[in-house]
């Protein structure tokens, strides 16, 4: 994590939807191996920011620079569409809040994982099957379910499958939008442990959007607090949670029992 240069550099990112300024003038750097949590109440612009940074939504203003495997900073907006799509497939991983948005529901669990590998050029069936099995095991899926369709899975299993599908290509930067949202508390806990371990073992850089401060305490090195599209506070996770400076952050922290 002590690499000398950021993997992602965001400056002045802004986006309006009609009269609403969804994201206003957001700037930050993300360092290799660093996990940044983005917190704030619903509607504060967290997911929009994630879409802007990952290139799936165009900003009205601002730049996103990403350091590619060769060490060059690539301007995401200036890239050609195919180049950006290739980057999204190889170097980035996106874990959606709703597993349905990240999975193909009409192909098997094994194929969901294998497909991602084929998209980056893997061709040997045995290797693909082997990698899929390996990843399903890493996310603690029962290998007996490898040929089943995701729609026969519980929400927690679907989310674990989505994580396997996302990480199988070894992305360098992962975006997660409420990865534990909508799950039972006990399922959430297991998923959190899983993500916590994977992120540490793989040394991933990640941006995790959540409204759950306890999730950030466990997963994020640092936090960015958003209110009405603007960043009101940033800092080390435990510092922001234990000594919040901004009135909005103090309100957020005081409204939960024990983050």
């Amino acid at each position, binding site marked *: 994590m002590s690499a000398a240069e950021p993997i992602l550099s965001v400056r002045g990112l802004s986006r309006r939807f009609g009269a609403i300024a969804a994201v206003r003038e957001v700037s930050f750097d993300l360092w290799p191996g660093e996990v940044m949590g983005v917190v704030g109440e619903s509607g504060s612009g967290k997911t929009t920011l994630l879409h802007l940074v990952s290139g799936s939504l165009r900003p009205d203003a601002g730049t996103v620079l990403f350091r590619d495997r060769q060490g060059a900073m690539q301007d995401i907006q200036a890239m050609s569409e195919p180049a950006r799509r290739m980057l999204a497939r190889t170097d980035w991983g996106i874990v959606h809040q709703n597993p349905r948005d990240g999975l193909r529901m009409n192909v098997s669990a094994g194929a969901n994982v294998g497909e991602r590998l084929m998209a980056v050029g893997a061709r040997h069936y045995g290797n693909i099957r082997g990698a899929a099995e390996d990843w399903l095991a890493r996310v603690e899926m029962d290998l007996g379910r490898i040929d089943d369709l995701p729609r026969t899975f519980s929400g927690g299993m679907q989310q674990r499958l989505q994580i396997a599908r996302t990480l199988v290509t070894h992305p360098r930067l992962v975006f997660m939008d409420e990865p534990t949202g909508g799950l039972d508390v006990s399922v959430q*806990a297991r998923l959190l*442990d899983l993500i916590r371990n994977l992120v540490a073992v793989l040394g991933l850089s990640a941006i995790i959007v959540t409204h759950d401060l306890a999730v950030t*305490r466990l997963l994020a090195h640092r936090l960015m607090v958003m209110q009405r599209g603007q960043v009101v506070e940033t*800092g080390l996770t*435990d510092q922001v949670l234990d*000594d919040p400076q901004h009135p909005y952050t*103090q*309100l957020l922290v005081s409204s939960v029992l024990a983050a």
Partner: protein
Amino acid sequence: MSMTREPLLLVEKLRKHFTLHLQGGLVLGVLDDVDLAVAPGECVVLAGPSGAGKSTLMRCLYANYKPQSGSIRVHHRGGFVDMANAAPHDVLAVRRETMGYVSQFRRVIPRVPAREIVAEPLRAVGVPGPEALARAEAMLARLNIPPRLWGLPPATFSGGEQQRVNLARCFVMAYPVLLLDEPTAALDAANRRIVLTLIDEAKRRGSAIVGIFHDEEVRDAAATRTFTVRPQTVSDTTAA
């Protein structure tokens, strides 16, 4: 003349207050122009009445609290990092390699077994898995945590057991700078003596230590020097 030893920790003009926005902007002054230098082999004990700001000072040193102004320079990788102003990834590097902290109230990491909690800081600096586990278990044994507890998450442990797991997690590393906030508060006499031995070893190794100890016996045995934190008067300034 004896060899002068450069301080490993250098605090200058540190100011800290809390603005309680949910209480009408009440400002609580805690630290005002604190200067403190801690050399290798020293154990500086913070003194002062309850609520004076001893833990607040210590949390500022660890960058858990954010001071209003001043600097907290820590010797790290041959240079100095200012914990009051460093970027998060630099603060985390200092915490990983240089500065250990045992807090008065430590949050347990849910669902992680004691031996993993203790091995984690070793792994984070690249000690291979089996060696990290072996060293973690040795430190747990030294602090009298029975082997049957090593595989369990400390959430259900007694107060003293949890405190000893926290101590093991800190002392399993040979941090050059140690921050100890009431590390023996929940311990019996036998375990307090073990902690004193660990502190002594750290001093002899050349660690710079800042400690808060309510127990007079522990304080007298550990301290090379006392530093008094003076309580500030609460101002009733209201933020605009």
